[in-house]
């Protein structure tokens, strides 16, 4: 595998680490299986692409994508909390609806960004050689997001959010407004996913209505794989494992697709991912809380 494709995998890994952190928040922290991300990822991409083409500053366009992702998360949480739609189903409804929204927004299945200004242009003048520029940039983005996210989980509000997912009755008895925290948690998770979609569109030079397919499983692969690669219990370690897991996942997939002996093509990514998640769940054992949780419920 060439250094350029390795760097390409790493930069994608950093971008998707935002998705992984979001999924960690919904699936693991809140126990809310949220599939909205398959919609909020391309939603963020679509918002940014449309706004950049309209001449917006790329950073403003990216901020708008975060806001759009937050809105998507709020819709899912609202469906679940107020309208009492089952959490999984609520997220699928939002995800499906967003597919249509994205095509309306882009007035078609895709919006190319070639030749347009992106957030990467803001660092082009720093003198970092081309293949290293994007990985370095997204490393910084992922590091900042991880730091803020981890701080948040250790804050008073973050603690209340963790209690909401782990024991809602106890959380309420301690004055936690659990419904608000579910709203907040889903907004944050999908805001991060919207940001990831926005950055990914700017990196690959287009927003595409189908680019969200499998976002959830890629994120889960990162969360589960990360926990298997870095078996730690502390919260700092667990969130770091999400970022690491995302990078490791993308490198493994790139290796698999590049290995000519395997004869895999880009469309085989999904089955490779599914296999990776299964393997991680099988061998992660107790180290992966998703597996452990499933075992706990069975007994």
């Amino acid at each position, binding site marked *: 595998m060439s250094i350029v494709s390795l760097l390409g995998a790493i930069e994608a890994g950093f971008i998707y680490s935002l998705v992984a952190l979001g999924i960690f928040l919904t699936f693991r922290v809140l126990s809310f299986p949220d599939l909205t991300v398959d919609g909020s990822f391309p939603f963020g991409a679509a918002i940014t692409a449309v706004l950049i083409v309209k001449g917006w500053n790329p950073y403003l366009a990216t901020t708008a994508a975060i806001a759009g992702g937050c809105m998507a998360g709020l819709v899912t949480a609202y469906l679940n909390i107020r309208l009492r739609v089952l959490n999984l189903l609520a997220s699928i409804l939002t995800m499906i609806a967003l597919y249509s929204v994205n095509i309306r927004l882009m007035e078609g299945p895709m919006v190319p960004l070639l030749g347009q200004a992106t957030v990467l242009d803001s660092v082009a003048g720093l003198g970092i050689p081309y293949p290293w520029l994007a990985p370095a940039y997204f490393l910084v983005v992922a590091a900042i997001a991880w730091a803020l996210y981890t701080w948040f989980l250790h804050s008073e509000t973050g603690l209340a959010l*963790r209690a909401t997912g782990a024991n809602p009755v106890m*959380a309420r008895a301690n004055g936690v407004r659990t419904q608000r925290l579910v709203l907040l948690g889903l907004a944050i998770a999908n805001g991060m996913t919207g940001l990831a979609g926005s950055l990914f569109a700017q990196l690959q030079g287009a927003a595409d209505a189908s680019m969200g397919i499998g976002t959830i499983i890629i994120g889960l692969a990162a969360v589960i794989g990360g926990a298997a690669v870095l078996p730690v*219990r502390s919260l700092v370690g667990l969130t770091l494992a999400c970022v690491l897991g995302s990078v490791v996942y993308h490198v493994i997939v790139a290796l698999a697709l590049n290995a000519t002996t395997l004869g895999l093509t880009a469309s085989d990514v999904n089955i490779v991912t599914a296999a990776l998640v299964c393997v991680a769940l099988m061998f992660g054992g107790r180290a992966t809380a998703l597996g452990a949780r499933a075992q706990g419920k069975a007994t």
Partner: protein
Amino acid sequence: MIRVEAISVVFNAGTALQQRLFENFSLEIPSGQFITVIGSNGAGKSTLLNVIAGELPVAAGRVVIGERDVTALSASERAGLVARVFQDPRAGTCETLTVEENLALAAGRGGRRGLRLALNRERRQRFRGELERLGLGLENRLTDQLGQLSGGQRQATSLLMAAIQPMQILLLDEHVAALDPRTAAYVLDLTRRIITEHGLTALMVTHSMRHALALGERTVMLHEGRIVLDVTGPERARMRVADLIARFRAQHGEELDSDSLLLA
């Protein structure tokens, strides 16, 4: 003070399973009183507790805590007034959080939660001091996950969490039922200490007639959502478990389910 005024509680309203438990039920607990509540399964003990805590809405009537009408407030909105210890040691604490995180969560009860770190040096020191007083060695286990503690240690932590913030009333929901007798005795003693120390208005639901008479200053027996016995003062001081059972039979003319009520 707790005042429950003419409440009615309906389960599964509007469905075939609709069921009424309380109807025009009233109970007043003066400030600083420690009351114990007994009754067989389905008598409404836990329902009463849930109504006061705000986990269950009432179909009619009012709930007043202190001088405040809290009928329309949710459980989390009442948390500044009410502290609660649950029957299941797992219910009152968060097993995936650490000991200090559980205490920090309780310390935020009734206040606004912001983006400040939930734990800092000052808070840790305070928690260590509080835990030391339990005499269980938990002050050295601040960063252990709460799930690693024994049932008794968890209930003791639960009590500490309940008492860590000022409150109007303390609700104890059969909080020693899941413990072995020695640990139960320890937790009950701790309960008494905390209630006396803070001069709390407290309501303890129990299955044990012995505990019901040994603790607190007033005992209420519930049956099918009604108060069938309400004793206090000298009358209560003279009462033995056998008297309680006799009173119960006199009320209902039915055989008592002997196991838990008698033996506990």
